[in-house]
């Protein structure tokens, strides 16, 4: 079985992403449940890369005429995912602003954090 570069790169990236996700679980930054969601997502990416015929089944199930259409829809999904990612980044900026408002409120109430000596 000869593999295309994409069929090698995609599973490698998936494995790295999974190792990273589960390392966050060990550091208690991610819950097991979230890591399971990540595992399903990256496993699907790797599976589609290694077994493109999966898309034929997807096309059949979703009523698309051919594999190319299914691929297009899949990429639209990925792009939506990226857009939502950007929304989350914007929210993170809002969070930073909130953090400033919160620490200033605590300072004004005379409850500033004691510095460790």
């Amino acid at each position, binding site marked *: 079985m000869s593999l295309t570069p994409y069929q090698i790169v995609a599973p490698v990236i998936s494995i790295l992403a999974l190792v990273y996700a589960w390392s966050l679980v060990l550091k208690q930054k991610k819950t097991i449940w979230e890591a399971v969601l990540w595992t399903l997502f990256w496993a699907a990416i790797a599976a589609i890369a290694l077994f493109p015929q999966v898309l034929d089944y997807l096309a059949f199930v979703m009523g698309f005429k051919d594999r190319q259409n299914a691929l297009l829809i899949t990429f639209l999904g990925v792009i939506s995912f990226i857009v939502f990612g950007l929304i989350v980044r914007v929210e993170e900026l809002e969070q930073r602003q909130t953090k400033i408002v*919160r620490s200033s409120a605590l300072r004004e109430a005379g409850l500033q954090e004691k510095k460790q000596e």
Partner: protein
Amino acid sequence: MRVVAVIPAYNEEKRIPSVIRRAQQYVESVIVVDDGSTDGTARKVQELGALLIQHGENCGAGAATMTGIEAARRLGADVVVTLDADEQHDPNDIPLLLKPLEEERADIVFANRFGPFGFAQGKRRNHIPFVRRLFNAVGNLVTFAVTGRWVNDSQCGFKAFGPRALREVQIRMSGYEFCTEIVRETVRHRWRAAEVPIKVLYSEYTLAKGQSFANGVKTALKILLRSFLR
């Protein structure tokens, strides 16, 4: 055990005095986080002798709750009880929430508006409007989907944090999503959780102040996305 009540408030000058007065009967001190109110909320809080912390602008219920929790930590509290400022929660239920913590059965106690409350002989259920029940059911399902943990009333703001939970809790979400984040924290830190049925007082005012359907959908999407992209 030093118990502190944390009340996030936004434009609640009419309701907050009675909440503070009743809460003061059960806790050592009351912290009110005024989340950028434009009415007389801050003045009422000061008149009643509660500790006032003011956000310069409206940041959301989650941010206000976390500010209150942080203040309680810095004041050396052992236990924090969070409750809404709109009279929806009855401060007389605070001892019920504290009981599992006093008996060292739990690190966090969730109030449950949907369970039967009262004494064994006369247990009653709250009359909660159908739309509210539906919203809460969706909130519970979303919370379960992202945390893997079922809590009967995950979206209720009435909670008690024991010493361990108080030390470890870190809320990053500013809006109403914080309730789901607290369930996530429960899973992440492996806290022991208890649920206590409480009575709830819905009025036209509290119903009008609640989340709209569009807000609920937005909140659910945010929670799902955040849990996936975190």
